[in-house]
């Protein structure tokens, strides 16, 4: 059986993700962001951000507080860690999707020159190791670096459901949501199996 054609909506979000990845971010340059993505795909890491990327991508269930603290001691800021986490988690989403559909990973983009644009927020520690705006739960994990959180919402909305409480349309608040023939319970079964296979028990 041949591969499944790339769905148009997925192709579009992948284009947006590659554009985000290539450009200077909030705390990392475009070159640093692309290098983080390369490390997540198996390139030899050469700094704390890239070491973080490799583990987040391939062995997230092994991550401990001590490992996290060691990265900070090695010079990685918490905000940089949040940015790395955003990049790697979205990369994993698009790479797994392409693999599942039967396509090779898309080559990483060429980085765009320029400096990061730092953004300071009122995020505080509230239920996790990193500061968040509001208690730490899925929609707030990346909130200390707003562009990363917005990017996560973008990918989440295209691949699964919009992370909001709307009771109509493709939103998490709609318990009767159906996308491309996949009903909500089937979606949640796939979600639960994925989480179990990743040893993630939220």
């Amino acid at each position, binding site marked *: 059986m041949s591969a499944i054609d790339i769905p148009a909506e997925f192709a579009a979000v992948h284009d947006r993700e590659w554009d985000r990845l290539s450009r200077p971010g909030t705390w990392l340059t475009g070159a640093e962001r692309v290098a983080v993505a390369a490390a997540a795909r198996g390139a030899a890491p050469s700094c704390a951000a890239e070491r973080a990327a490799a583990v987040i991508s391939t062995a997230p269930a092994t991550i401990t507080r001590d490992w996290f603290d060691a990265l900070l001691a090695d010079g990685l800021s918490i905000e940089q860690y949040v940015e790395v986490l955003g990049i790697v988690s979205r990369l994993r989403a698009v790479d*797994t999707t392409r693999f599942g559909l039967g396509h090779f990973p898309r080559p990483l983009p060429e980085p765009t020159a320029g400096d990061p644009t730092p953004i300071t927020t009122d995020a505080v520690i509230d239920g996790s190791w990193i500061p968040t705006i509001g208690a730490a739960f899925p929609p707030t994990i990346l909130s200390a670096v707003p562009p990363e959180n917005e990017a996560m919402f973008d990918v989440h909305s295209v691949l699964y459901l919009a992370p909001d409480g709307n009771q109509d349309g493709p939103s998490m608040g709609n318990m009767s949501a159906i996308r491309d023939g996949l009903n909500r319970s089937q979606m949640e079964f796939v*979600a639960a199996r994925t989480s179990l296979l990743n040893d993630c028990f*939220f």
Partner: protein
Amino acid sequence: MLRASAKHHGEDVNLLGVGDEHLDVGLPGGRVLSALTEAAVLRDSDEMERARTQAIDVLGVDTAARAIQVAGNFEMMNRLLDAVGVGPPDGLLGVGDLIGVPLPDRHH
């Protein structure tokens, strides 16, 4: 969320099918969704081809593609949670018994 969705729709779901691939969760296409998800998440190239073909046969190409995208989404969400020390809410630790997999209490 699976439990909540099944309750909302009055579906008789066997949650042990989440933890044991050999058990039927009781949803349409449950077995092929399980195999499709496992092959994608574990990046098993040989199994992926077979699982994708079965999923297309049983569910149709668009539904199979959507299931793969949902798995991709949770690859992202799992990393967000595991990388910052967020574990299951205390009130949900009992769900482990329902799916046949003890849940670790990462809060303590």
